């Protein structure tokens, strides 16, 4: 579900034909246009010429001597700021890959759900502006970052510190699908996924506080993907 404004154009760098076909098909089915190259060098050619690419999805392991991470470096060295999502095999999530998350790019381990991939692409595409505003607003929901208070309309919403952080993350990304994995890495700063889905329970509690009985829901559960904060009116 790309943002309503324009159709986003993505570029995939993946040498595995089956995997590439599946990713391209899934993304196209969700309304993206996707171009595809097999090596990092070929991808660099495309990206130098075509600045309309919104997000690059690159496999970490690529043939031809330059892997996905090298490609990120090369693009940054050339001053191309296109965000990149690196697909990494499970066993190869090392510190270099984790560093992507800090640098504004992101990584995703294979195998992944398409919903997760789309959520990450959207998160990269619509990176929240680095605002100095001290108040965040989504519909009737208002968050004061200085006094650390939240109001929904006239009602004050008492939140625990963790809940406040969760809501802040969501309010900076309204109308975006946010997956539990994103919350674990970005809000909790965890590198692992707990066996039980604890994030759901946390979100459930938060939802109860934001959407009280009789109010139109703002936090929505997106089936098979995660959650979304949307203005109720």
């Amino acid at each position, binding site marked *: 579900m790309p943002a309503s404004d324009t159709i986003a154009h993505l570029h995939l760098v993946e040498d595995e034909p089956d995997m590439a076909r599946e990713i391209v098909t899934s993304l196209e089915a969700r309304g993206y246009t996707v171009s595809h190259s097999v090596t990092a060098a070929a991808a660099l050619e495309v990206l130098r010429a075509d600045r309309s690419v919104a997000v690059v999805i690159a496999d970490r392991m690529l043939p031809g001597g330059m892997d996905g991470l090298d490609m990120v470096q090369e693009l940054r060295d050339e001053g191309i700021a296109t965000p990149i999502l690196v697909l990494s095999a*499970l*066993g190869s999530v090392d510190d270099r890959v984790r560093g992507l998350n800090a640098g504004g790019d992101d990584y995703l*381990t294979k*195998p992944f*759900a398409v919903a997760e991939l789309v959520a990450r692409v959207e998160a990269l595409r619509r990176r929240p502006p680095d605002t100095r505003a001290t108040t965040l607003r989504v519909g009737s929901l208002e968050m004061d970052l200085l006094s650390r208070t939240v109001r929904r309309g006239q009602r004050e919403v008492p939140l625990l510190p*963790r809940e406040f952080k969760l809501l802040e993350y969501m309010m900076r990304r309204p109308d975006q699908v946010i997956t539990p994995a994103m919350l674990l890495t970005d809000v*909790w700063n*965890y*590198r*692992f*996924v*707990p*066996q*039980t889905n*604890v994030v759901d*329970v*946390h979100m*459930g*509690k938060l939802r109860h506080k934001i959407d009280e009985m009789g109010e139109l829901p703002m936090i929505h559960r997106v089936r*098979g993907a995660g959650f979304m904060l949307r203005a109720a009116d």
Partner: protein
Amino acid sequence: MRRTELFRAGPFRLALGFATALSVGMLLIFGFIYWQTSEVETRRMQRDLVQEAAVAAQTRDDILLYQLQVRIMSDYHRVTVAAWFDADGKRRYGNLNALPPDLPIDDKGHRLDIRTNDTDVPQPAILTAAKRADGGTVVLGRAMDELLALQRVVARTLIAGLLPAVALVLASGVLGGARARRRVQTVQQTIGRIMGGDLRERLPLSGSHDAVDQLSARVNQMLDRIVHLLDEIRAVGDNIAHDLRTPLSVMRAKLERGLAAEEPEELRRGAEAALADLDKAFGMITALLRIAELEDSRRQAGFTTVDLAEVAGEVFDLYEPLAEAKGVTLAREDKGPLFVTGDRDLLIEAVANLVDNAVKFTPEGGRVLIRTRMGGTGGEEAVPVVEVSDTGPGIPPAERAAVVRRLYRLDKSRHIQGNGLGLSLVQAIAALHGFKLVIDGSDLGAVIALICGAADGEGVGNPGAWP
């Protein structure tokens, strides 16, 4: 047995060297004896003879005659040469018929082959001749056959002693070499069989506790360990196959039913359910890879000072809502900061897994306690401990060692969601830190502790090791 192989065998070469040394030693000893008997004796005899001859040359005729007579008569062994010739070379008395032509008359000892009246063939002897004032000559001498006999005895003894000794040493070398070679051969054959896949084979021990035995014993220990590891891997493989087969079969059935269904909605439901099963299977693979990654990474470079109480607090916050939703009380008990050296993220992961398990296995109305404290390891020093206790069914003592194994799940927990990898993961994290995982408790609940001190061996299943 090929000859080259025999000569290459250590014991044989040792024996060869020993035989050589023995031969050289014996030759030196016998050489000395030989030299003593021949040279020294000869010289002594020569000196005596020269002196006697000099005296005889001065002696009065009648006394000389008498002395020569006594000398010859008292010589029972017929080794004495004594003769007196006048100035014309005519014999006046003695057991020589004529003055030996090649004997210089110079008051010195000479070795000559001489035939006396008493012998038929010339025999080696030491002779000396002295001139008398009247022009006559006195010849005194002594046959050397005694000395030669002695020398022959010495040589015979040498041969009789040396040859058997060398033969004995070489024979023992051959035997020892053959024995060592047989042992090496057995070891090689055994190793061949082991390499052929028969891992139950063990190297034979002779019981002599020698170097080969000790080496074999170590190799056997190594084989035991390898077999143990292989069994473990095989068990894990079996478990993976088994645990994957179940969700895959269910998945297949669901998809099949979905395809056969009339309603598109039913197909959709089937596909969704199958996808959930697939995710479960992936989760298991993910956890296995994670454990493998932890076990592989022996690096502790990222270690910093971590507050255990803060870690416990973090996990408490993470699981508190879940416990509440399940109707389980999650409690915390700590006595201020408790610092350990480690990887904060991994320690959170470990404690989170312990709490995850505890909450999962504790029935509604139960209680899970996360406690950080100083505790003992059975030794003197108290070390930081983080401990998670619950009021679940507990872990039977007999199964405490098994639960940290990959994919091991207690029978009574089969129905509870989970991949059976939680404790293995905690164990892997503990091992990486050199910490100890101790499983204790009763049927009133499990108590699982991460002892954050130097691990002194297997902690699991050793509840008596700490208070």
